[in-house]
């Protein structure tokens, strides 16, 4: 990084955090600290919702995902607009009128205290696990760029986030998120434009798009139905809808964003903005990853993107052979790509088909060399499951982007990390204070006391995230890890809210056991079947509803029988 990059990076981050803290003045009651006094306009909520969901993982891992697997990951988001419509029509007015701080507070009003306690505990477990993953991503960034120990990086980023979250509450978070999303869009566009700009002379944008297509990196829609295939249109539309219904409808980190709205209409507009903007935004991120792939067709990529790990494997006797195999495969691929582009421009379909076949053969050789290199790394480090997906985009940014843009893109990644971590830490603190402390520990105390408790809980969850992030760094593709963790719990949470909203005759005990049955079915699906994780939400939700409804009917019948006997 050049001095200009450091100025851009620290200037951007300092300005964002200072502005957020400035806008959070007056957060001196629990209502203002946790819900911003319900004064937020729709555009601030919209960007805050987007910022909370788009973590550093989104930029580091999603671009890497496009590099290795193409754009098919975008199908994961097809269910999001549908979920936003359903939540706007159902959950938003219910939560607003219930006048609650948390979604789980509503469950006690609708069912009973044990159902509220169970679902609050599920939320604390799953969100507590994913906040560590979200914090691990920027640690990867800084360890690659600065060579800092990842643990130290985690602590530094964690401390910055905890400071402004503890001091300013949700208002600081929301206004910081607004600025952060502006920087994110700017940085993303800069990265995409630069990736295309850096292509060799003679390779046009259309050549690049065509090459990405022939390389299978523009596979945005797959109509084939397969329960074991992670990303196709059906898993996206059905599984994705259930996942996003769970996330935006039952996860406090999102519910709390739209509970800050001035009115039902403002909250709905905030959600529907996301319905419209999210899929194009993911396309932009994935397309950037695809263009980085094309860039590395012409510029020789490292054998393994995680350089620190590669150093360990260099002393292996088999390394020179793998390196030479990789080099010759890279040259064959580049030649085939050049011939493909010439054939495309000349309109020669026979030569185009022949060069495409040569390209695929060379790509296969290149992939084989990378697999061999991964084996060497695993052998040298004594680990298994080596995965360098998270390092691809970072390698491109730090080695090839011009001065100033590097600082901006790193600011994007850190901004995204801080916005999602702050939102998650804030929601964990809110549930800990409102659903646990105020409900079960100290039922009657002053507003000042609960404000103090909220700040302490925020600091606690920030520290917890730092500790868990240390473990999360070794989980492979972080974007998938965070979604899989969420899917283990969301189905049960969604099911209980479906019971609450749509089945008025179901009562607390039936809902409670329904949630437990739903969670059991999800864990069975995860550990005992090959079903893709996007379907866990569907399985869990359906089981909760069926068990809850049947149990409720059985309890009613038994009560009627007892009443008739007496």
């Amino acid at each position, binding site marked *: 990084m050049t001095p200009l990059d450091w100025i851009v990076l620290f200037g951007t981050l300092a300005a964002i955090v200072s502005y957020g803290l400035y806008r959070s003045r007056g957060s001196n009651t629990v209502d203002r600290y946790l819900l911003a006094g319900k004064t937020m306009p729709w555009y601030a909520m919209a960007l805050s919702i987007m910022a909370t969901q788009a973590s550093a993982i989104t930029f580091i891992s999603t671009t890497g995902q496009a590099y290795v697997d193409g754009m098919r990951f975008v199908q994961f988001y097809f269910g999001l607009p549908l979920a936003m419509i359903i939540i706007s029509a159902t959950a938003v007015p219910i939560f607003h009128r219930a006048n609650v701080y948390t979604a789980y507070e509503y469950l006690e009003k609708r069912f009973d205290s044990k159902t509220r306690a169970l679902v609050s505990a599920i939320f604390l477990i799953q969100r507590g696990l994913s906040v560590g993953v979200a914090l691990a991503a920027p640690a990867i960034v800084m360890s690659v760029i600065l060579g800092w120990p990842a643990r130290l990086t985690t602590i530094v980023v964690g401390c910055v986030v905890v400071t402004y979250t503890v001091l300013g509450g949700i208002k600081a978070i929301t206004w910081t998120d607004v600025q952060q999303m502006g920087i994110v869009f700017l940085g993303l566009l800069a990265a995409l434009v630069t990736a295309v700009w850096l292509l060799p002379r003679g390779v046009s944008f259309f050549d690049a798009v065509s090459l990405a297509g022939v390389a299978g990196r523009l596979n945005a829609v797959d109509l084939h139905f397969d329960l074991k295939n992670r990303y196709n249109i059906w898993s996206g539309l059905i599984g994705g809808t259930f996942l996003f219904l769970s996330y935006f409808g039952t996860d406090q980190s999102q519910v709390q964003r739209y509970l800050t709205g001035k009115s039902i209409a403002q909250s709905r*507009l905030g959600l529907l903005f996301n319905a419209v903007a999210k899929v194009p935004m993911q396309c932009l991120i994935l397309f950037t990853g695809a263009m980085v792939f094309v860039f590395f067709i012409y510029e020789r990529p490292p054998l393994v993107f995680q350089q620190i790990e590669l150093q360990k494997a260099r002393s292996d006797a088999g390394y020179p052979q793998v390196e030479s195999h990789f080099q010759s495969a890279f040259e064959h691929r580049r030649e085939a790509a050049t011939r493909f582009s010439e054939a495309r421009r000349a309109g020669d379909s026979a030569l185009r088909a022949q060069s495409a076949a040569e390209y695929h053969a060379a790509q296969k050789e290149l992939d084989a060399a990378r697999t061999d290199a991964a084996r060497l790394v695993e052998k040298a480090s004594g680990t298994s499951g080596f995965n360098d997906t998270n390092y691809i985009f970072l390698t491109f940014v730090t080695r090839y982007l011009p001065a100033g843009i590097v600082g901006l893109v790193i600011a994007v990644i850190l901004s995204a990390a801080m916005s999602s971590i702050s939102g998650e830490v804030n929601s964990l603190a809110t549930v800990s204070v409102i659903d646990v402390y105020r409900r079960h520990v100290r039922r009657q105390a002053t507003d000042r006391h609960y404000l103090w408790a909220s700040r302490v809980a925020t600091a606690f969850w920030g520290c917890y995230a730092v500790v868990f992030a240390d473990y999360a760094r070794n989980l492979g593709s972080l974007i998938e890890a965070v979604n899989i963790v969420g899917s283990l719990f969301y189905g049960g949470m969604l099911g209980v809210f479906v019971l609450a909203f749509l089945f008025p005759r179901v009562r607390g005990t039936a809902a409670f056991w329904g949630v437990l049955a739903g969670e059991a079915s999800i864990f069975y699906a995860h550990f005992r079947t090959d079903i893709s994780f996007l379907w866990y939400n569907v399985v869990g939700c359906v089981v909760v509803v069926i068990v809850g409804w049947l149990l409720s009917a059985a309890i009613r019948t038994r009560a009627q029988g007892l009443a008739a006997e007496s």
Partner: protein
Amino acid sequence: MTESRPPASEAPDDPPPFLGSWRRVYTAVFFYLVAVIAALYVFTRALRP
């Protein structure tokens, strides 16, 4: 501060600032999604290997 916040409010369900009703806004978002998926499908088919 007590365990519960003030009694449930009757928050007004204001109309959207455009299209006249929320039902029409939801319909517009739905058809927008259909159009985006269709465009991405055409993109995939046109550029597949």
